[in-house]
């Protein structure tokens, strides 16, 4: 091989075959702002037509690229304008019909999730927002592939505690509405602080109002490849060397994502949006962020040292990825979803990973408390308290945080919820039973912190 190095070729082949390296998602962001109509029937027709037109060839083209280039591309998805923004013009509309329309359009074009049944309420409720929030439990119960997210806080605006109080009740109601199906609805509902408007990953993807009409985002992955690279490093190598190796590996992974973004953008005639530089784990053995932390030298994820190791990993992934891509966005960093990460599941089962440690980790990871299964009798105000804590970490640190917890209705500690597929399975994790009800019940808004005053 004159141009290509044998070692490089074999490294790539091992990454793609044994180390689960893939492009996790190609997500088409579609604006629905031109679908707004005071007539709900007309609005739904517009939505269906726009999605099925814009995304008509998405799945076909992405699968074609995957086969032609030999790159596994796992998911094809769609994100849309937060639906609450369409509801304001239609006071009599039932938001659930909009969710059904999204579900039908997504199925028609063959994507596996569509995100955007949501609202941005970080400073207060606009027209349509409250109706949307109220409709979330039913919408997630009667649809299959619709995902919902609500932004309740931001560094600039503070935390809308009225929304936080409601979201605790909505998360519970959503789990109750899908209790017969592993409480699956709650796995498709995210409560954000500082939500990015161009996130390609579910369940929190939506197409923000500042985005263009239509664009393509790519979310990369590859925890297995990072872990395998670190396994080759001697156990006494200093952490500078660990960071350097993570950076180099993240660079390679991200370049693969950028290649797919360029090809898909050209073939679909849709501008490339962002690359999300994330390490997104799967339940497959070895494709785990927890295993990377353990490879660095922790006995079990969640032990003392975990937050520091995660901070190093999160930073190195960004530094490696940023040079490999044209535009960085989305969540970008290391995800720590419990049920979707084999190493996290094992750590939670053996008791080394607790909810409190996870909360600390969210100060330095890319998102937040993700895919955590709570006891079925967890009160709504406790969930609201957890959401408020996470939102506060995001608000003060100027980062995205989120809560996606699943109260396992009718089940208690020691039992397991199994969602199947990429969502995985997880043991029920204990949560503090002391009540924040009075604090949460006060409502109002936690003022924006000093960090907001940057001008």
């Amino acid at each position, binding site marked *: 091989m004159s141009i*290509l190095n044998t070692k*490089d*070729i074999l490294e790539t082949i091992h990454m793609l075959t044994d180390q689960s390296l893939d492009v996790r998602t190609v997500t088409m962001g579609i604006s629905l702002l031109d679908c707004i109509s005071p007539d709900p029937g007309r609005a739904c027709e517009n939505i269906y037509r726009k999605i099925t037109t814009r995304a008509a060839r998405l799945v076909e083209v992405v699968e074609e690229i995957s086969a*032609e*280039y*030999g790159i596994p591309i796992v998911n094809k998805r769609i994100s849309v304008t937060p639906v609450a923004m369409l509801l304001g013009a239609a006071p009599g509309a039932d938001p659930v019909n909009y969710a059904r329309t999204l579900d039908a359009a997504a199925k028609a074009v063959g994507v596996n999730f569509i995100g955007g049944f949501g609202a941005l309420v970080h400073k207060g409720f606009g027209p349509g927002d409250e109706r949307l929030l109220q409709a979330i439990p039913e919408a997630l119960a009667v649809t299959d592939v619709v995902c919902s997210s609500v932004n309740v806080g931001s560094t600039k605006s503070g935390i809308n505690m009225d929304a936080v109080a409601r979201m605790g009740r909505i998360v519970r109601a959503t789990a109750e509405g899908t209790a017969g199906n592993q409480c699956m609805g709650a796995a498709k509902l995210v409560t954000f602080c500082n939500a990015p408007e161009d996130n390609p990953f579910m369940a929190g993807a939506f197409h923000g109002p500042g985005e263009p009409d239509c664009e393509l985002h790519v979310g990369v992955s590859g925890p297995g490849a990072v872990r395998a690279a670190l396994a080759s490093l001697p156990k006494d190598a200093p952490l500078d060397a660990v960071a350097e190796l993570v950076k180099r590996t993240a660079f*390679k992974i991200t370049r693969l994502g950028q290649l797919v973004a360029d090809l898909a953008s050209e073939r679909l005639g849709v501008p490339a949006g962002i690359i999300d530089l994330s390490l997104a784990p799967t339940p497959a053995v070895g494709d785990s962020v927890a295993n990377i932390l353990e490879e660095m030298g922790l006995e079990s994820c969640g032990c003392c040292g975990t937050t520091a190791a995660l901070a190093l990993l999160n930073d190195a992934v960004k530094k490696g990825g940023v040079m490999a891509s044209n535009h960085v966005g989305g969540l970008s960093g290391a995800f720590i979803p419990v049920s979707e990460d084999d190493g996290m599941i094992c750590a939670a089962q053996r008791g080394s990973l607790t909810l409190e440690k996870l909360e600390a980790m969210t100060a330095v990871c890319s998102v937040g408390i993700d895919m955590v299964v709570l006891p079925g009798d967890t009160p709504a105000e406790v969930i609201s308290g957890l959401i408020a804590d996470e939102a506060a970490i995001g608000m003060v640190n100027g980062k995205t945080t989120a809560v996606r917890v699943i109260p396992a209705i009718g089940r208690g500690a020691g039992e397991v919820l199994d969602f199947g597929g990429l969502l995985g399975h997880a043991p029920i994790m204990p949560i503090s039973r002391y009540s924040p009800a009075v604090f949460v019940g006060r409502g109002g808004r936690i003022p924006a912190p000093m960090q907001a005053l940057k001008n």
Partner: protein
Amino acid sequence: MKAVITVIGRDTVGVIARVSGVCSEMNINIEDVTQSIMQQMFCMIMLVDLSRCSVPQEEMRRRLAEVGQEMRMQVNVTRQEVFDAMHHI
């Protein structure tokens, strides 16, 4: 339209002959071949030109995968752009 065919597994007689035979049947030109033993595994790497390939992508991949199965070796076909993107700045 260049691609890299990699064949990885326990060494056996006639690997190059088998793979290059199938390539020839599909009008795939072989531009370079290298082989080595890495971590007790036999690795053969072929740089090929697919631009005059006489069969569709899926069939080309299927036929090479079948050869791999017969030899009990792992055969992958990956476009050169993938390696360029990952290993060249």
